[in-house]
Structures are given as structure tokens and as C-alpha cells.
């Protein structure tokens, strides 16, 4: 579970922004700086794959324990093309998992944003909401699994709730910190300009909190994926976690590796998506960070 120090996410946000910022020089002349994140970043992962393949082919580790990358790829192809009795198809499992993830995340994110607004925008709201959230924050998320099963059974609901809870906490904490971190001088300016409370929230508070909110979003997506993996290994009959479960029983490590690979790709994809959102939403500070 995330133990967020309200300041550290901000630093994270800056470094994220900075890595986005290099494409344009501050004066907008379009001078390109040396790109550090191009193909060079692929060298070490590719090297790792090569070593992995060599180790397997040389027979240093049995293929049962560590299937070589080539076998993982061919297993993946098989799982996509054949609808086996044990696993179904990979794409079917992927869809089931995505649905779970999206529903759970949407639920958690909505609740987190509403609660963060309530506690961020009023003292009474903070007193009502924040202690509870701070308590929930310290609960070990996956320790709740047995309780959730007792309460909500073994169907879809406890899984969604686990994902929702995992996603809600970092988003709430960061958004709350972001709202509270908005420069009081700007709020004062809003008052001098005669903004209504609504306008103040819309033009000053929310945009000011946005950088931290986006940091929270990334953290909470990470936790949501993690929760998905855990949730899906509880008595499921569909989804990626179900495939892992089955593969464990059949001792098919190559299938497990395929699923792990898919999880990784999904994680990377969401991260990329949030970066794109960040890049658009925080365009106003690109100029500064590139300088």
C-alpha cells in the first residue's frame, strides 16, 4: 500500500514532466536536445532476453522451471489461436480482466475524487473524511481479502471492491495534498477578481491540484493492476489470473510467463497513457522545465 508523503509525489511529477519536456527548447525554436529515451533504452531489456534464451538453450536451467523466451512466444501464439478447455483463449481472458480492472478502477477513482474534493475544500470535510482515509490507508490491502470473501462472497463483487479500494487510496491522498498545496496567494487573487466559489474551484483549485492528482492517478493505476492480479487468483473462472491458476495446477510455467508478460504490457500501456494525458494537461509548465 502506498505510504505517500505528500511532497514526494510532487517531485515525481516534476521528473516525469522533465522527461517529457526535452523535445522543444524553451524559446520554442524547436531545437532538439539529444534524445535519451530512444532505442538506447532497449539495449538492456534485449540483452536480458538474450541471456535468458542462452541460459535455457544451454540447459543450465530446465525449461520447465524457466521456459526460454522463444517458447513463451510460441505458447502465447497457441493460446491466442486455440480455444483450449483448460484456458480458453488469451484474448478472452484479457477482456475479462480488462473489464474487471476498468469497473473497479472507475469506482475507486470516482469515490477518491469526490472524497478528496470534500476534504480538500473544507475544514469540516477534512475532519470528517481524512481520518477515515488515513486509517484505511494503513490497512494491508491484501489482508482484507479473507474479510471481503466472507462479506461479499467469491463472485465479481469482492474483486471489484479490492481493485477499487486499492486504486482509491493513492488517488485520494495525492489529490487531497494537491488541493491543499494550491498557493493561497492565487486563491486571494481569485477573491480580488471577484470569482465565485465555483469559479475559484474550477479555475484555481483544480488546475493547481492537477499535477499531484496525475501522480496519484499513476500510483493508483499501478495498485489497481496489482489488486487485479491478486483478486483474480481467488476462485475465478475467467481472466488472466484464472489462467495463472490453471497453469499452476498443470505445472505449465510457460503459460504463467505469458500471462506475466501480458500484465507487464498492460502496466506499461497504462503508464504511457497517463503520460500522454500529463503531457497535454500540464503543457503550461513544459516551457519552464525544459529551461
Amino acid at each position, binding site marked *: 500500500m502506498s505510504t505517500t508523503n505528500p511532497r514526494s509525489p510532487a517531485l515525481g511529477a516534476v521528473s516525469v514532466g522533465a522527461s517529457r519536456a526535452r523535445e522543444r527548447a524553451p524559446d520554442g525554436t524547436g531545437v532538439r536536445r539529444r534524445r535519451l529515451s530512444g532505442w538506447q533504452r532497449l539495449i538492456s531489456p534485449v540483452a536480458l532476453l538474450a541471456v535468458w534464451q542462452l541460459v535455457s538453450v544451454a540447459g543450465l536451467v530446465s525449461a520447465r522451471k524457466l521456459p526460454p523466451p522463444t517458447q513463451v512466444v510460441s505458447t502465447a501464439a497457441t493460446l491466442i489461436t486455440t480455444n483450449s478447455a483448460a484456458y480458453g483463449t488469451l484474448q478472452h481472458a484479457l477482456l475479462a480482466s480488462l473489464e474487471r480492472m476498468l469497473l473497479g478502477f472507475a469506482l475507486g477513482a470516482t469515490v477518491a475524487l469526490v472524497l478528496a474534493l470534500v476534504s480538500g475544500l473544507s475544514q469540516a470535510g477534512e475532519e470528517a473524511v481524512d481520518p477515515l482515509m488515513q486509517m484505511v490507508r494503513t490497512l494491508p490491502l491484501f489482508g482484507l481479502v479473507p474479510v471481503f470473501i466472507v462479506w461479499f462472497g467469491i463472485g465479481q463483487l469482492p474483486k471489484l471492491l479490492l481493485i477499487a479500494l486499492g486504486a482509491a487510496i493513492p488517488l485520494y491522498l495525492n489529490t487531497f495534498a494537491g488541493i491543499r498545496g494550491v498557493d493561497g496567494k492565487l486563491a486571494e487573487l481569485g477573491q480580488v477578481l471577484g470569482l465565485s466559489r465555483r469559479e475559484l474551484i474550477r*479555475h484555481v483549485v483544480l488546475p493547481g491540484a492537477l499535477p499531484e492528482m496525475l501522480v496519484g492517478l499513476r500510483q493508483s493505476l499501478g495498485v489497481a493492476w496489482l489488486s487485479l492480479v491478486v483478486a483474480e487468483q481467488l476462485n475465478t473462472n475467467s481472466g488472466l489470473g484464472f489462467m495463472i491458476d490453471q497453469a499452476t495446477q498443470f505445472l505449465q510455467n510457460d503459460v504463467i510467463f505469458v500471462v506475466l508478460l501480458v500484465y507487464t504490457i498492460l502496466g506499461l500501456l497504462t503508464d504511457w497513457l497517463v503520460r500522454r494525458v500529463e503531457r497535454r494537461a500540464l503543457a503550461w509548465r513544459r516551457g519552464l522545465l525544459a529551461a
Partner: protein
Amino acid sequence: MASRSSGSLTLPRRPGRERSRPATGDLADGAPVVSISGLRRSFGNRVVLDGLDLEIRRGEFVALIGRSGSGKSTLLRGLAGLDPGLEGDMDLHGTVSMAFQGARLLPWKRVLDNVRLGLRRPDPDDVARAALAEVGLQEHHDAWPMTLSGGEAQRVSLARALVREPDLMLLDEPFGALDALTRMSMHRLVTGLWNRHRPAVLLVTHDVDEALTLADRVLVLANGRIAHQATVSLERPREREHPDLISLRNRLLVELGVDTKGTS
């Protein structure tokens, strides 16, 4: 609701909004914009304003100087409606706008959106563009505030104050953070804007020369009141080294408690 009558004072919480007269002009040059009497403000045991009286008329350029901690900013914030803890009588007539020391632009809004923020009129874009043109920044309407220089940001903030067509313009050390050259051109700009629109201006500054260059009247704030006033009747633009200004400056420095004999 253009005026606010006296009584045990309640300050407008949102000056710009409540006094939403469409344009200036129903207050004639010379009509009182600010009438304050017996204004008091204390923070705990420390009394910052202690029975302060002040009147400012439309078209008047007033500078307020004082040692740091003398209450200049407290007075200004009070006039802007930012201080609910004031006691005393304060009448404000007309619209008030303010420019701050840091330009206080919203970094996530482009320049034009900063200027038009909170404007309640049918043509906010047009008047905002016109105000930007007046401060010489029409080309920057689409820029992000973080790409502006300090002087440019401050000009945007002046445009934002100006676009509200204020009867009283509060300037809280707006040039304090600028370099000397930029400051000189800002002085010319402010003088020009004031000449054209004739609001009452109350400029808080710690710079006696700046006060003498710009203002008709220089107030010295000490011990919670206006301890001294000097009228400056020289034509503008003013020569810094004009003998009248030099003698005024020395007198003001004495009032501020600065020992001029030792230094000159």
C-alpha cells in the same frame, strides 16, 4: 451597488463582483473614492493600524511609503477586501482592482485567459485584448505565463487590473522585483495608463524615489497612521534630480527615520 456606506464596518468580500458597474465615468474626477476614518487593525497584541484616516479622490495618484512592518500592505489588503479583521469606517466608491508584487498570474492559463478571468461582461475577450494592447503585449495573448519575463508578467497583471475599469487601482509594490531599467519603463507605462483612464491609484512602495516620480501625493505610514503627507506638484515626466524633489526626498527620508546627514 457602487458605494458602501459607513457604519461599523463590514468589508466587501468580493469587491469586483459586487460592484459590477459596466463602466467607469459615473464618478467624476475628484470625487472621493476612498474615505477612511479611525481604521484599526491588530494582530494579537501588535497594533498595526491605529486610527488611520485617509481620503483619496478619483484621478489622484497616491503613493504610500513606510518602513517595513508599518502596515502598508495591511491597509492595501483591507481596501481590496481581503482582510475581514479591520475595524473602523471605510467607504469605497466604485470598482477596485489590484496588482500584486508577484504578478500572480495563473500559470495554467494563457495570458489572455488570465486577463479576462472573472470578467462579467458580454465581450471579455475584446476588452482583454485591448488591455493587453495597452500594455504592449497584444502579441503574447497566447503565451503561457511561465514563458514571460518578470516585466512582461507584471504588465499582464496591470492589464488584468486595468480591464476591470477600476475607480481605484491598488498597486502593492508591483515593481519591487524588477530590474532598474524595466522599472523605469513600467513607471512610464503606469503613468500613461493612469493619465488615460484617470482612476485613483494607491501605490505601496518602499522606494521613495519611485513614490516621488509617480505620485501627486506621498503618504508616510508610521505608528499605525498617516504620519506625514507631501504633495508633489511637479509636471511629469519628472527629473529625478530636480531640486524640489531632492528636498522632498530628504524630508521624507527624515520622516521615515533615515539619517540623511551621515550619507550625503
